[in-house]
């Protein structure tokens, strides 16, 4: 859930300057971490399933059948049964991954880009710039994330695009904080001072020294937000503020199938299981990467 979006304190610690063979050691650590590898593969499988949905799905996810409504698991080749319109659940789950992943990932990407940039500018820039940026972010940070997401997308009338805008606005302030803290801390480290002393320009310092050391925490934090993004996005769709029907989307499927809870409870529970598996996998993958990249360990 979005309240998992607490700032990881360990990440705000200054990262040590990059050393030779860093990525090699990260890779090495990952190789000996079977849990992360396993969930990495699960995430890969989920992404591939979404990308190649039209090839994988056994049925057309939008093909209804009046007689084949709300059938149980395994009915006439529908492994996971059919929904309230007789559409194949498995196919809709596979296709639904496309929208659900997109709605979870795109806002994180936007927030990383926008929030990260603002954070670096805020951290590197002068006091006034910093105050202006960070105080504005604080205002948005003052809302519980679900509330802000619901309020923004609700106010704008729902829909996939509005939902993604809302989620981007939820993630940006947090992202900005992570980037700002990392930048501010790196800025005063010896090697940056040294670079400055040797006459390197601001841009050069930014490019070679700051970014190199800020990207790590930003990336790790972004990876931990993906699962939150997916949960929030499906939550919005569940409330009717996200994707509009008949688009296949896990949150929306959960919301419509809920009306048939008395007819076929098992089928109703499936889209939520898809959300859970995806979100757990992303979380564990992100955890693994974080500990692998944490050079302070």
């Amino acid at each position: 859930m979005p309240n998992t979006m607490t700032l990881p304190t360990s990440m705000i610690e200054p990262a040590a300057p990059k050393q030779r063979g860093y990525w090699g050691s990260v890779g090495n650590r990952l190789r000996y971490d079977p849990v992360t590898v396993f969930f990495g593969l699960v995430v890969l499988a989920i992404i591939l399933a979404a990308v190649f949905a039209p090839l994988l799905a056994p049925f057309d996810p939008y093909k209804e059948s009046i007689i084949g409504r709300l059938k149980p698991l395994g009915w006439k080749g529908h492994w996971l049964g059919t929904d309230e319109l007789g559409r194949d659940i498995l196919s809709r789950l596979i296709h639904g991954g496309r929208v659900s992943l997109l709605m979870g990932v795109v806002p994180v990407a936007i927030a990383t880009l926008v929030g990260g940039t603002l954070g670096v500018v805020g951290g590197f820039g002068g006091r006034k710039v910093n105050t202006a940026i960070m105080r504005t972010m604080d205002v948005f940070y003052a809302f519980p994330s679900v509330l802000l997401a619901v309020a923004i997308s609700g106010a704008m009338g729902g829909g996939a695009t509005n939902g993604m805008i809302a989620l981007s606005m939820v993630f940006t302030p947090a992202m900005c904080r992570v980037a700002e803290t990392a930048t501010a801390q790196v800025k005063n480290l010896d090697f940056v001072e040294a670079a400055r002393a040797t006459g390197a320009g601001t841009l050069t310092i930014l490019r070679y020294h700051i970014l190199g050391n800020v990207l790590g925490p930003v990336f790790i934090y972004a990876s931990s937000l993906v699962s939150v993004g997916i949960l929030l996005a499906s939550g919005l769709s569940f409330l009717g503020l996200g994707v509009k029907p008949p688009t296949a989307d896990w949150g929306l499927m959960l919301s419509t199938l809920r009306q048939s809870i008395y007819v076929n409870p098992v089928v109703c529970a499936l889209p939520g299981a898809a959300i859970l598996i995806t979100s757990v996998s992303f979380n564990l993958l992100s955890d693994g990467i974080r500990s692998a990249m944490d050079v302070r360990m």
Partner: protein
Amino acid sequence: MPYRGPRSTLATLILAAGLIGAAAPSQAESVLTVGMTAGDIPVTTGNPDQGFEGFRFVGYNLYDSLVLWDLSSADKASDIKPGLATSWEIDPANKKRWIFHLRQGVKWHDGCPFTADDVLWNLARVTDSKAPQYFTQQMALSRTYVTNFESAEKIDDSTVAINTKVVESLFPYSMSYLLMVSRCRAEELKYDWNAYAANPSGTGPYRFSRMVPHERLELLPNKEYWNKDRIPRHDKLVLLPMPEAATRAAALMTGQINFIEAPAPDTIPRLKSAGMQIVTNKYPHNWPFILNFEHGPMTDIRVRRAANHALNRAEFVELLNGLATESYDTMPPSSPWYGHPMKYEFNQDKAKALLKEAGCVPCKLTLAISTSGSGQMQPLPMNELLKSQLEAVGFQIEFKVMDWNSLIEIARSGVPKYPNIDGYNGSRALLDPLSALIKPVWKFHWSPAGSNWGHFFSQDAEDLITAILNEFDADKRLALLIKLHELHAEQALMIFVVHDLNPRALSPKLKGFVQAQNWFQDLTPIEVMP
């Protein structure tokens, strides 16, 4: 720190007052608890919000209007009957002056007598912005019904005259939607309508007991009701807003409530197997697409007819588990205004031929639909079926899917603002001839001023409407109304799909409910068995 507003004390007082006349407590209290589809409790200050459901459960229970609906029979089409007025007639000398004879001896829940002055006071409350009792919210909620109201005067203590702006033979129907509230109570509360909402007084068969905002409204029988046949036969009526069908079904199954509105078709088998009574009846409702007559393919009658021939309505009925009937016209055949309209049978070849003749291949349509909404039935599954059937004959449908409020905005603004929408899916209440037959085809009601959304125009329709509004002989007027209904069909005015059967599920312990062919229902005869 339990939260208590002033309403609790008030409610307790009223409850205590109500109990004085209540039955001996030897038997367990019999409570009728209704799960409504509304998202909130309808307002209690007179005309309710939440559409006709608000009228059904709150409006006509707390209040009466001059003219009421006859809800006593399940077998015949429901029409208006005397309410607070015992009779009415048009002034023979002035076709714009209606005389209403008022019922004598009626008392408000607060004990004051109902008078001719009260009627004038109520009319001013929603029409005269200078009157102290003028109330914006009520003005907004009743304005549709008083558009033709000009002025009113008291003839004597038991008679009032109402003058209309234009001649309108159907005016008494409008008066059935204007609920009368107590002037006594309003003056006592110094026109504080919030206080009134928490302590309303009407003349209806139920009196207010208590309210938990957003959650429940409790009403007690009005033992002094002027119509002795309609004194409620249970001790208490509790109304709960439950917008989700699954929630309503769950609450009925676990015994939290004993009467639910609109159970989802899919839950019916389970409800039946749990012993619940499922009641249905035809009623004046239809679920059509209202079309654009200014722009796009729907301006061509051949395209409209093609769309109507393309639909296999039997599949819709099957989708809804039999809780609907096929609709080929505006009115269901049980309506007195039905006549002998053209019928658009399911015929894909004919539909294809018509489209080809019209040169609309593929025929692209942009249709607005809602995800839910009052009277919208199961909009998403039904529209997906509609789309597949229309596309089978050569249409190409693009849906604009939106929430109910956004669809209302489109419905209200009409084609001037949304020229590129070829039609929208809005269920229609066909209670009175004005809203059922006249408004959708009358130029006077072109949107956004009225409900002729697509700017339909035909001189024949205009002439018929003029004739109807000037015809004060009921039989002759009926013949004209039938003609107008046949014109709807002949013009393929809408894409006709189904009529709802208005399902309700009742606990096996309830006895005596008669489902009238109406949007409104009478709950008073229901008995709750132990």
